[in-house]
C-alpha cells in the first residue's frame, strides 16, 4: 500500500516536539550564553595571527583566598562565578593594521620628498606635457624625473650573467674610495647629510672606460636600450633648482630574462660610454647637502644615458616573443576601444578621461620598524638591543638590487620602504594618488613588489588602500598600447600577472572572499580564452598574428601554468570560506594541469577531510596517494605516505602510533622539520611535556634556519607557558636567537612575550 493516509480524526500531537537531551535538566534561561567565538578548530582562513588575537572568552583563573584552605570545601558556584561575568564579554577584535598616525603624516611627506633626480639627456624623446593642474614646485621639492629602460632582450649578455645579478657587488659595506666626484667627501662627514653613492652603483660608474660591469649590472633588470619617460606629475629638473640629491635609480624596465632576440650587444655598450656626464650635476650636490641637513637618506647619484639610434620600427621588430607571451591580456571592451583610438591617434592623452586612468600614490609612510628590536629593548634593555642588526632601506643600494637584498634577508618592512622611495622617485609618492602620472614596466613592478610584501606582512588594509587607485587593473594607461611613443609596437598589459593574482586574492584576507572569487573567476576566463585562442592557431589576444610552433608551445605552457595558479587561488579562497565541496573539486581539477603535484594535492585533499572530521574519506584519498606513490616506485615508505598515516592515527586519537609514524619519517629524512615538530606535538598529548620540550629546543638550537619558524616557536612558547612560571626567561632566550637570524619581517607574536 503506497498511500499514506492521514487518519480522519487528525492527530492531536503537536507537529514537532523538542527533544530533550539526556542531561539537559539545567535551566539555562537566565544564563547568557557567550556567543561562540570563532572556533578553535583550524580553518585555513585563520592565520596564526588571527588565532593569537582571539581572546579566550570563557577561561577564568583565580587563586583562592588564603583563608580558604579546606580543600574539600566545595566552593559555592555562584561565589566563584560572580567575579567573572564581566570579564567574559570583552571585546575581542584588535585592529591588525594601524595606519601611520596622522600627525606623523606631514612630517612623512617631507621626508618623502625625494631626493632623487635623473638628468634627462637631450636624446630622450620628451613625452612630458606639463599638465595645467600640476602643483607648483616648492623650494626644496625634489625633482623626480624618472628614467627608464626600454624593453628588449639581449640573449648573449644574458648568457653571461645567468643569475641576473652579481651578489658580490652587494657586499661592500661602504662606498668605494675610487668613486669619481664623491671621493673628496669623507663618509663620516657626510654621514646622514650627503648623498653617498651606493656601493654597487659607484663601482659600476666610476670606471667609465670599462663597459662590461655596467652592462652586467643593468642586465639584471633590463636587456637593452633606455628610454626616458618624464612623468608629468614629477617636477621638471630645470625649474626646481639644482637637484639636491641625485639618486640613481637604475629602474631597468624590462625584466625579461629570457626569450630570443635579435639585437646585438652593441646597444649595450653605447649607454655607458658617456658616463662622465655625471660629473656635471655633481657640484650642486654638496650645497644641497648643506641646505638639507636633516635629510637622513644619502643617495647615490647616477647618470643614466640613453642609446639613441634605434628607430621605432626596429624596436617594434625587436619586441620579443617572450614579451608578447607574458604581457598578453584581454582588456575590457571599453578599454580596448580607448587603446584602439590611441593607436589610431584619435585619442588625446591630455584630454583623456581622468577617471579612466590609474593614478596611484603611496598611501602611508615609513613602515620601518623592527618588532624584534622593540621587544629586546623592552625585555633586555637598550644595551642588549644594540646587538640586533638588520638591514634597513638606507643600508642597501637604492636600486632593485638593494630591494632584492632586503627581500632575501627577510627585511620586508625595509623593502617596503625602499619601494616607497623608488616610487616616489617615479612621481607616485606619498599624496600623489589621484594625480596624473604615467606608468612604466618598472613602476608597476615596484608596485607589485610593494603590494606583495605588504600582503606577506599581513598588512592587508594598507595593500588595499594602495591598490584602490588601480581599480580593476584595466585602466587603459596600464597597457603598453597607451604609450606608443615610449613603447613603440609593444602590446599587452604592463601589470604583471602576479600582481593581478595578488589583487584578486587580497579581498579574501579582508573578509570579502566573494569579491576575491569574482576576480579570480574573471581571471580564469581570460586565461581560458587565451588558451583557446592559442589552440585555435591565433595569437594570445585573438589576433591573426602567426606564432611559430615553438612559441605557441611555450605560450600554451605559460598560460596553463597561469591558469593553474588562478585555480589554486580559487581553491585556497574556497578553503578559507569553508566551502569544502568546491575547494576539493578545484584542487582535484588542478591535478590535470600539474600532474607532478598529484601526490601533494591528493594528500592535501585528504587533510581537508581530516579537518572536517571525515576520517574515512580522508583515508580513501591517502590510499590513492599510496597507490600513486607505488606507481612511481617510491613504495609505502615514502615520507608523504607515512606522514598521511600519522595524520590518520592522530585523528583516531592514537597519539602513540602517530608519534611513531612521524618518527618513521625522520628515519628516512632526519631533517624533515614537519615530522620533527609534529612528533614533538604528539609527545605532549602523550603527557610527555619535558621530552617534547627537549626535542623542540634541540631542533631550534641545532638548526635555527629551519626551526625558527613561527609555528615551531609558537608550539615551543605554548609549552613553556604550560611548564613553568619561568616561561618569560625561556622566551627571551628564543628572542635572542631570533634576533641573530631573522629580519624585520619576523612575526613576534609567536613568541607570546607581550
Amino acid at each position, binding site marked *: *500500500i503506497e498511500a499514506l493516509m492521514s487518519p480522519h480524526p487528525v492527530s492531536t500531537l503537536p507537529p514537532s516536539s523538542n527533544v530533550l537531551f539526556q542531561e539537559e535538566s539545567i535551566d539555562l534561561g537566565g544564563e547568557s550564553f557567550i556567543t561562540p567565538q570563532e572556533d578553535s578548530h583550524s580553518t585555513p582562513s585563520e592565520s596564526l595571527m588571527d588565532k593569537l588575537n*582571539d581572546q579566550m572568552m570563557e577561561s577564568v583563573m583565580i587563586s583562592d583566598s*588564603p583563608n580558604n584552605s579546606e580543600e574539600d570545601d566545595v566552593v559555592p558556584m555562584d561565589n566563584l562565578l560572580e567575579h567573572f561575568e564581566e570579564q567574559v564579554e570583552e571585546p575581542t577584535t584588535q585592529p591588525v593594521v594601524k595606519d601611520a598616525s596622522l600627525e606623523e603624516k606631514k612630517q612623512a611627506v617631507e621626508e618623502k620628498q625625494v631626493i632623487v633626480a635623473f638628468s634627462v639627456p637631450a636624446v630622450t624623446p620628451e613625452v612630458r606635457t606639463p599638465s595645467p593642474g600640476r602643483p607648483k614646485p616648492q623650494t626644496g621639492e625634489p625633482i623626480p624625473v624618472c628614467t627608464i629602460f626600454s624593453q628588449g632582450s639581449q640573449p648573449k649578455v644574458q648568457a653571461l650573467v645567468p643569475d641576473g645579478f652579481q651578489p658580490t657587488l652587494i657586499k661592500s659595506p661602504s662606498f668605494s674610495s675610487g668613486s669619481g666626484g664623491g671621493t673628496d667627501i669623507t663618509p663620516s662627514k657626510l654621514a646622514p647629510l650627503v648623498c653617498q653613492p651606493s656601493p654597487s652603483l659607484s663601482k659600476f660608474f666610476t670606471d667609465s672606460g670599462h663597459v662590461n660591469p655596467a652592462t652586467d649590472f643593468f642586465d639584471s633588470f633590463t636587456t637593452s636600450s633606455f628610454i626616458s619617460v618624464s612623468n608629468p606629475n614629477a617636477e621638471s629638473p630645470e625649474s626646481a633648482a639644482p637637484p639636491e640629491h641625485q639618486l640613481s635609480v637604475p629602474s631597468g624596465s624590462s625584466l625579461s630574462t629570457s626569450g630570443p632576440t635579435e639585437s646585438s650587444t652593441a646597444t649595450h655598450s653605447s649607454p655607458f660610454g658617456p658616463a662622465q656626464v655625471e660629473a656635471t650635476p655633481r657640484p650642486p650636490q654638496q650645497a644641497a647637502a648643506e641646505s638639507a641637513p636633516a635629510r637622513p637618506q644619502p643617495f647615490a647619484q647616477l647618470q643614466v644615458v640613453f642609446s639613441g639610434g634605434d628607430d621605432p620600427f626596429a624596436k617594434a621588430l625587436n619586441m620579443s616573443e617572450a614579451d608578447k607571451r607574458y604581457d598578453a591580456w584581454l582588456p575590457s571592451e571599453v578599454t580596448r576601444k580607448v587603446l584602439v583610438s590611441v593607436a589610431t591617434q584619435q585619442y588625446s592623452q591630455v584630454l583623456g578621461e581622468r577617471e579612466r586612468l590609474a593614478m596611484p600614490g603611496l598611501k602611508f609612510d615609513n613602515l620601518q620598524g623592527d618588532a624584534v628590536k622593540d621587544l629586546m629593548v623592552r625585555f633586555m634593555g637598550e644595551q642588549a638591543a644594540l646587538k640586533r642588526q638588520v638591514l634597513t632601506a638606507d643600508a642597501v643600494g637604492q636600486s632593485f638590487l638593494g630591494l632584492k637584498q632586503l627581500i632575501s634577508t627577510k627585511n620586508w618592512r625595509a623593502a617596503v620602504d625602499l619601494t616607497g622611495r623608488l616610487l616616489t622617485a617615479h612621481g607616485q609618492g606619498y599624496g600623489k594618488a589621484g594625480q596624473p602620472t604615467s606608468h612604466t614596466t618598472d613602476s608597476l613592478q615596484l608596485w607589485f613588489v610593494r603590494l606583495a610584501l605588504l600582503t606577506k606582512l599581513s598588512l592587508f588594509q594598507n595593500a588595499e588602500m594602495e591598490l584602490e587607485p588601480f581599480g580593476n587593473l584595466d585602466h587603459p594607461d596600464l597597457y603598453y598600447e597607451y604609450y606608443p611613443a615610449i613603447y613603440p609596437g609593444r602590446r599587452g598589459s604592463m601589470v604583471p600577472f602576479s600582481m593581478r593574482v595578488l589583487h584578486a586574492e587580497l579581498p579574501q584576507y579582508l573578509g570579502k572572499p566573494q569579491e576575491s572569487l569574482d576576480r579570480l573567476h574573471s581571471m580564469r576566463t581570460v586565461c581560458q580564452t587565451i588558451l583557446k585562442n592559442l589552440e585555435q592557431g591565433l595569437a594570445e589576444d585573438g589576433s591573426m598574428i602567426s606564432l611559430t610552433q615553438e612559441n605557441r608551445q611555450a605560450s600554451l605552457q605559460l598560460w596553463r601554468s597561469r591558469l593553474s595558479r588562478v585555480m589554486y587561488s580559487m581553491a585556497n579562497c574556497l578553503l578559507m570560506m569553508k566551502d569544502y565541496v568546491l575547494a576539493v573539486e578545484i584542487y582535484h581539477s588542478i591535478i590535470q594541469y600539474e600532474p607532478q603535484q598529484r601526490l601533494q594535492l591528493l594528500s592535501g585533499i585528504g587533510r581537508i577531510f581530516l579537518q572536517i572530521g571525515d576520517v574515512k574519506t580522508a583515508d580513501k584519498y591517502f590510499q590513492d596517494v599510496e597507490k600513486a606513490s607505488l606507481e612511481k616506485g617510491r613504495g609505502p615508505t615514502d615520507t608523504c605516505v607515512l606522514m598521511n598515516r600519522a595524520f590518520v592515527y592522530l585523528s583516531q586519537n592514537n597519539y602513540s602510533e602517530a608519534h611513531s609514524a612521524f618518527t618513521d619519517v625522520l628515519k628516512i629524512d632526519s631533517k624533515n622539520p614537519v615530522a620533527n615538530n609534529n612528533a614533538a606535538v604528539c609527545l605532549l598529548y602523550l603527557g610527555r*611535556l619535558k621530552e617534547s620540550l627537549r626535542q623542540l629546543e634541540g631542533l631550534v638550537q641545532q638548526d635555527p634556519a629551519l626551526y625558527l*619558524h613561527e609555528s615551531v616557536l609558537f608550539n615551543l612558547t605554548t609549552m613553556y607557558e604550560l611548564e613553568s*612560571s619561568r616561561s618569560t626567561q625561556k622566551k627571551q632566550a628564543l628572542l635572542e636567537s631570533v634576533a641573530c637570524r631573522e629580519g624585520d619581517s619576523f612575526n613576534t607574536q609567536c613568541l607570546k612575550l607581550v
Partner: protein
Amino acid sequence: MKLVCVQRYLVITFHRITQFDRTLWNDDYVEYLFVSAKTQQWRNSIGLMRLTKPTLFTNMPVTCEDRDLPGDLFGRLMKEDPSTIKGAETLMLGEMLTLPQNFGNIFLGETFSSYISVHNDSIQVVKDILVKADLQTSSQRLNLSASNNAVTELKPECCIDDVIHHEVKEIGTHILVCAVSYTTQAGEKLYFRKFFKFQVLKPLDVKTKFYNAETDEVFLEAQIQNITTSPMFMEKVSLEPSMMYNVTELNTVDTGDEGTSTFGKMSYLQPMDTRQYLYCLKPKPEFAEKAGVIKGVTVIGKLDIVWKTNLGERGRLQTSQLQRMAPGYGDVRLSLEMIPDTVNLEEPFDITCKITNCSERTMDLVLEMCNTRSIHWCGVSGRQLGKVSPSASLTLPLKLLSSVQGLQSISGLRLTDTFLKRTYEYDDIAQVCVVCPYMSRET
C-alpha cells in the same frame, strides 16, 4: 588543620596568557606576586592547558614569475619555509601541527581533555605532593585525577604530568579545580588551588516530527541543526528503536552495491545548517496485531548522534526517548488493504478496505457511499455489513471510478452504527493518480 602558610606563593602559568589575565589581576595583586617571588623560595606552579586537537598550519602563498622584479626570490622564500608543502607551495593547507591557541568552545558530548603540569620552580626538593583535579558542575563534583596517591618527592625543575579526560554530560558552567598540596623541606605544609571556568554549550538542535501511516508504520523526521561555529562531520545519526519497533533508515539511495547518502558527496554540516533524517518504524509482528487498539503515548526510541570535527575531535549525544501519541482511531477504524496508485479516467477500479471495531462493544454497521465531485462509487449505498464484535475486523472490497484527472482524494465513506445511531465519516482516505488512457496510448 590549617595548612596555609602566610608566605605561600602561587604562580599562575597558564598557557592562554592574553590581556585577559592582566585585566583579572589588578596592579596590587601583580605587585604582591612580584614581591613574594623575590622572597619566597618554595615555589610550585601549576600549568593547565586544554588539549583540543592540534591544528594544521596554513601559509599564505605569494608568488611571482621569473620575469618579475623579485625573480625567483619569492619562490625561494616559499621553498625555504618549512611549513609549505614541498613541490606544491601554493597549496595553502600545510602539514605542520600547531598546539591549540585558545580554549575554544566545548560542547555537550565532547570530551574535555586537559594537561595538568605541576612544576617545581624552586631550588629545593619538595615532598608529598598531591595533585587533585576536580570538575565542579552545577549538579555534582567529579574527581578526574588518574591517581590519588601522593608523589613522594619532586626535584627542582621537575614536574608531575597528568592528562585528564572527561566526557562532558552537562550543559552550563563547569569549573576545573586543581589543588596541589606539598611539604617543603622545612616541613611546612603548603597548599594552593587553581580554578578554571568554562561553559559547555549545546552543539545541536534536534527537532522531530512523526507521521503515522495508515499501515501502522510510523515515519520519524528528525531535523538536526549544527549550532556550533565549525563544520561538523556527522559520522552516525541512527535511531535506536524501542522494543516494539523495527527501524529502516531512509537516508541513503540504493545505487548498485553501496547506498549513496541523500545528503550528497559531503557528509558534513556547516554552522547553522540543518539536515533532515527520515526513519521508518514498523511495529514488530507481535505488537502489530494490537496496533490498531494501542492508544495513548508510546515510546518510539532514541536518536544516537556521533559527530567529528577538526582532526577527529569526537562528540556523541543521545536524545531522550522519543515519544509519540498513538493516533486515536475513534470507535471504528477504516484502513486500506489495497489500492492501485494509478488508474484510468472513468474506468472503475477496486480497493480493499479493512474495518476494525476499536470500541468495547459490538457494533452493527451500515455502509453508505457518497459521491464527490470526482469520485463515483459503484454499487449499492446503504448496505448492511452486519455485526462486528470488539477488536474484530472485516475486509470489504469496493469499486469506484474517477471522473477527473490528476491526484484525487478518495472520500465519501460513511459508517453508521445502528445500535447507537452514530455515524462515522471517512474522507481523504487515500489518494490515487488518475490518468487519461488515450493520452498515454498516443504517446
